């Protein structure tokens, strides 16, 4: 068992003031790792969906799941890494796009299924979605000094098949 497996945990919780701090607080107070965290209300405005990426061995992940479940605001959660699931993250990248780079950037964006959202004489702003590792790959493919700014949403995800998380 890898000691530092990556886990994508998706949480359905009460859309209450302070609920997010309780989750964040839990991770800092107990010394757990947290790599990314995304949160927004669901179709039911009384509920929020929070997805986070964390690392740890089996025992730590088990504790994280139990401690999260123990929070009064948490309605239900699923460790998407333990099931067939889709993971998606949104990334916005501002790159240099002058001279030879202009064609190169467009080509790379196309290969990765991205869209150019904004164009200036010197820059492109590209939108990409995919798994975290796909977005990492895109950034690796681009020359380092061509990147002006990177904004990532953090991973979110949903289970495949008929399984659904609801209150």
């Amino acid at each position, binding site marked *: 068992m890898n000691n530092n497996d990556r886990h994508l945990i998706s949480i359905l*919780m009460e859309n209450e003031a302070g609920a997010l701090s309780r989750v964040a607080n839990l991770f800092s107070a107990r010394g757990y790792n947290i790599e990314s965290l995304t949160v927004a209300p669901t179709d039911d405005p009384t509920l929020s969906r929070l997805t986070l990426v964390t690392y740890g061995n089996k025992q730590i992940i088990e*504790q994280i799941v*139990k*401690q999260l*479940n123990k929070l009064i605001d948490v309605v239900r959660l699923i460790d998407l890494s333990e099931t067939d699931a889709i993971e998606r993250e949104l990334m916005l990248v501002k790159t240099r796009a002058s001279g030879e780079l202009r064609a190169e950037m467009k080509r790379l964006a196309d290969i990765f299924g991205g869209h150019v959202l904004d164009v200036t004489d010197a820059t492109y702003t590209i939108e990409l979605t995919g798994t975290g590792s796909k977005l990492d790959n895109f950034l690796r493919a681009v020359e380092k000094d061509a990147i002006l700014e990177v904004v990532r949403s953090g991973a979110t995800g949903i289970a495949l098949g008929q399984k659904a998380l609801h209150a």
Partner: protein
Amino acid sequence: MELITGAEILVRCLKEEGVEYLFGYPGGSVLHIYDALYLQDDVKHVLVRHEQAAGHAADGYARASGKPGVVLVTSGPGVTNAVTGIATAYMDSIPLVIFTGQVPTALIGNDAFQEVDSVGITRPCVKHNFLVKDVTKLAETVKKAFYIATTGRPGPVLVDLPKDVTIAKTEFHYPKKVKLRSYNPTIKGHAGQIRKAVDLILSAKRPMIYTGGGVILSDGSTELVELIQLLGYPITETLMGLGAYPATDKQFIGMLGMHGTYEANMAMHECDVLIAIGARFDDRVTGKIEKFCPGAKIVHVDIDPSSISKNVHVDIPIVGSVPHVLRAMINVIRDEKLKPDTDALARWWRQIDEWRAMKSLSYRNSDEVIKPQFVIEKLYQVTAGQAIITSDVGQHQMWAAQYYPFDRPRQWINSGGLGTMGFGLPAAMGAKFAFPDQDVVCITGDGSIQMMAQELATMKQYHTPVKIVNLNNGYLGMVRQWQEFFYQKRYCMTYFEALPDFVKLAEAYGHVGMRIEKPGDVEGALREAFAMKDRTVFLDFLTDASENVFPMIPSGGGQNEMLLAERDEMVSTHDEGMVLL
């Protein structure tokens, strides 16, 4: 329907919840609530002298009675002072509901006078907390607070009340029931797991039952006693679990852990099946985790899933409330007429009795100087083992746990998890409110008592006569003991060069003070003090400053690596142990 203020609604909610006592301290942001309290007689308010004591007194009341303790403090410093009391209750899973004043909603976040982010500052040490911004939500929130505090694994719940919310008016309707979609504690254990556990328990050759505070909190004592006597197995209890099983019964082999008995720790180390009930494998119990119960299969019953397999891998986890799970186990055993392995058990008891014969709690008494253990033993005799005992934190706490055998649950009240010095006196006052006709004793030390001594005034005002047994050795004894063992006797900041005259201090607060300096006077002084039924008596016992708590498992040691009094050469633990503290 008539419209009433938030403050009046709060008081009516407390009445609906059957709250007898409110431990608190007034201030600007709670003035409306105090005004509403003035206009009624149902809920009695106890005016403490420091907000920390409000928490501890409510806590002592809760631990003694099994009912939730209720606290009311003002915003800002009222809340920050109360935090230690809240954290103490949180670590020991005590049901408290704490109401805190807050600046008006329009001023929240403005750095207003006496403003602090109460919900934020207490978040890590409460089971849950609420900020009420709308008076129409107040009654429902109070109901939820009591429900959350008292169900599942209990704990403190804080409700923050901005001043304008206590002034605003609405109709009062107190919900009969509350249901939270996100909070449904598991009460009944899983039948399949219980069946598996029973099979394992009955297959044991060297069984051991280890119980904790969860048995007391869930009122599971009756079921525990029935199960233990049905099985004939040995039982040990944690510091928080003492009293769940009668300590004077022969199947009880003493407290376990850092200062547990030789037989309890050896039996833990050698057992082949460990049944943990309402206990959480705290570091003070396990010692070095790699050396903990090396040959044992483990069954763990706990209402909190996150307690299971947190520190120690568990073979058969059962999530549920202790009395329900134990009742189900008893039923399986009785219905199917199952029996333990009596031959193996007899051999096991012979082994345990050999360990017992070490008499690990023996100490060398003296005619010259008062031994602290001797005071506790005499206290036990004089009170016929019946008093409610609270303690502070330190050596005296361990001696109380070791030398006062508790025969019933809720008789022993101490801060086990957080280890809060200053807890004992206000907790004793709280216990006395719960049981005015019982003897309540606070066992304390010269360090701890000074942290909350101001509550002697509260005890005078409300006439809550308790007996204070101060084991005065002039030192912060437990820290001194560690410095002696592990820091080559470099006694840094553990000696009090100046102590108050505790007799005069007690008298200054209107109580009786007694100083006892000779072993021959101990029993007489105790008898005299307990004869004064209606007085708080401060017994200042000048005790042997060099006495240490034994047995002791130095941090980092295994359960079978104990230091016994006057038998072992002290050795410094290795660096790894020092880090564990």
